[in-house]
């Protein structure tokens, strides 16, 4: 059984079909890449998985539970966490406070529960932010803000992490560093889905790739298979560069 199973997912916005009868699964411990040109529907898939959007049809199961219509916070508490494409830290909290929010129990009875400073620092350390706990997000460079988003997701102790364009806006050196950090998360046993429109950056990192085009699955396979797939090359040549 796959950890996450998306079956026949369709999402329509009015007359526009953003996701079209898409099925894929991710196995425990693997990194799945989901690629496709801008506007292919990648982020919409994540929004459906996290119940940010209601699905039009199809089912999503996580660890055997149907989570299609489960609300976002419950999905998170089941062990699924998402790093959004848009960074949205709370600027009036320092880095530590932003991470701490993600450790708080969803309970009215918990006045002082959640991670202490040491635990918060350990989440931050997994993405090299441990020296910036007191800084507010608006003081951080872009790459650090992106890493804070990952630290927040880690703080919910997920089994599966969805990373939406984690490399967007980073330079080569920052991409390399983040790739290494993602790699070491995998070694700790984290399952991940990484979305990107840029194939080259992703190919070293992922075990398997699903290519989405116009909301539907175009191809699926190992990075090598995908690189040689003619449909994929056509799709990219007609739209964006690889």
């Amino acid at each position, binding site marked *: 059984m796959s950890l996450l199973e998306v079956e026949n997912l369709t999402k329509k916005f009015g007359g526009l079909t953003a996701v079209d009868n898409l099925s894929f699964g991710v196995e425990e411990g693997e990194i799945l890449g989901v690629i496709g040109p801008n506007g292919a529907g990648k982020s919409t898939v994540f929004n459906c998985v*996290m119940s*940010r959007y209601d699905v039009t049809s199809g089912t999503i199961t996580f660890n055997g539970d149907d989570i299609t219509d489960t*609300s*976002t*916070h*419950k999905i*998170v*508490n089941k062990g699924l*966490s*998402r790093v*959004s494409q848009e960074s*949205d*830290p*709370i*600027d*009036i*909290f320092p880095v530590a*406070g932003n991470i*701490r*929010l*993600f450790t*708080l129990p*969803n309970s*009215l009875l*918990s*006045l*002082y*529960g*959640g991670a202490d400073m040491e635990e918060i620092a350990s989440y931050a350390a997994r993405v090299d932010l441990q020296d910036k706990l007191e800084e507010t997000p608006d003081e951080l460079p872009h790459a650090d803000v992106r890493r804070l988003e990952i630290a*927040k*997701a880690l*703080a*919910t102790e997920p089994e599966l992490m969805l990373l939406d364009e984690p490399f967007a806006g980073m330079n080569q050196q920052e991409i390399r560093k983040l790739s290494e950090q993602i790699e070491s998360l995998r070694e700790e046993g984290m399952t991940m889905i990484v979305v990107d429109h840029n194939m080259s950056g992703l190919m070293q990192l992922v075990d398997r790739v699903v290519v989405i085009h116009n909301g539907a699955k175009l191809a699926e396979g190992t990075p090598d298979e995908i690189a040689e797939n003619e449909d994929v090359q056509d799709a990219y040549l007609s739209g964006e560069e690889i």
Partner: protein
Amino acid sequence: MSSLTLIFTVLAAASSRASEVFGTIRRTILTPIGRVFDFLLAPVDRAFRPLAKVFNRTLGKFLGTVTGLQLAFVLTTFLLLLTGGIWGASIIAFEPGEGLIALDIRRPLAYACIWAVFAMGWDIQSGYTGYISFGHSVLSGGAAYTTAVLLNEVSSTLPLYVTAPISVFAAVVIGLLIALPSLRLQGPYFSLITFAAVLLFFQATRAFDILGGSAGLRITRVIPAADSFTRYYLLLIPMLLIAVALTVLSRSNYGLIFTAIRENEDAVSAAGINPTKFKIWSFLISSIVMGIGGVMLTAAVSNVDPTQFVQVDRSIEMIAMAVVGGIATVLGAMGGAFVFFLLKEVVLNLFIDEAALRLFVLFLLVVLILVFARDGLFRKLWHRLGQIGGEEP
């Protein structure tokens, strides 16, 4: 058209002139005064530092950490409030035409305690979560009317310990009726519902005989008006207890989550926390506080009427108080209530005889504070005091 252009040109010139003047005032008057204060207060900060250390180690987790000067400020305020029943009996004021006069301000001080409860009750929900309520007087008014109806319809001798819990409960029920349908949604829908609710309740008080119409319902005072000293303390003590309780809650996970809801509700969901649950919870806490405030006000008066207890103006005044003191601070809202109420009932009375003009000037001052001290007087003061103690700006 050309006259419009002229008006805009004049306005633009005037506003740039105003900001110039303000800049000059800041440079030549405010900054030097600030430096003098820094110079005078720095030793106070040092003197209170050891005590602040003890405070932070023991109570810091529950009440927040302070610098020496901030602690000195809190203790002074606390002392002033505790002795208000004595010094409030006779303060020296200046009235144009009359010169120096002695004033007994224990009545306004006592009522300011009640309004401080309202302002804090509004703040812990609207100020923290950002879901602004324009109708909080529906909660306090609901509690007040419950007391009045019980006294009029059941028995005029019902004791406070019977009417008070029922009245607070009524506020909670009204709170749930408003919160459950409206707080499931994001956005301005909630504000509109609270606004409609207070208008609805105001009309109900006048439409239904059992609620006494615009004249209201007569009741017997629980707190005798004749004894200003006792009245002040009977209202001060519950106010202080609520201030401490709400400060503790605001420094707990609740405060963090409520603030996060205001700043980024989606992030709260992404953190695995149910924002709806916490929004409704904040409104319930607020309803309880408003209920207690409503009971306090009812206990101090002999008539419960729509103008004093319900009218939407009352809700707006609660907001104004919190804004003046500093939104999402609890204690700032408390201070704001005292500033606002004493301005309204004491200070402006000395200079302006006409009631309508007094209110106009009062709300003009509120607007000025919003423009020039957007974070509120007490938040600004608090940070300033912190800076003298070497805290980062």
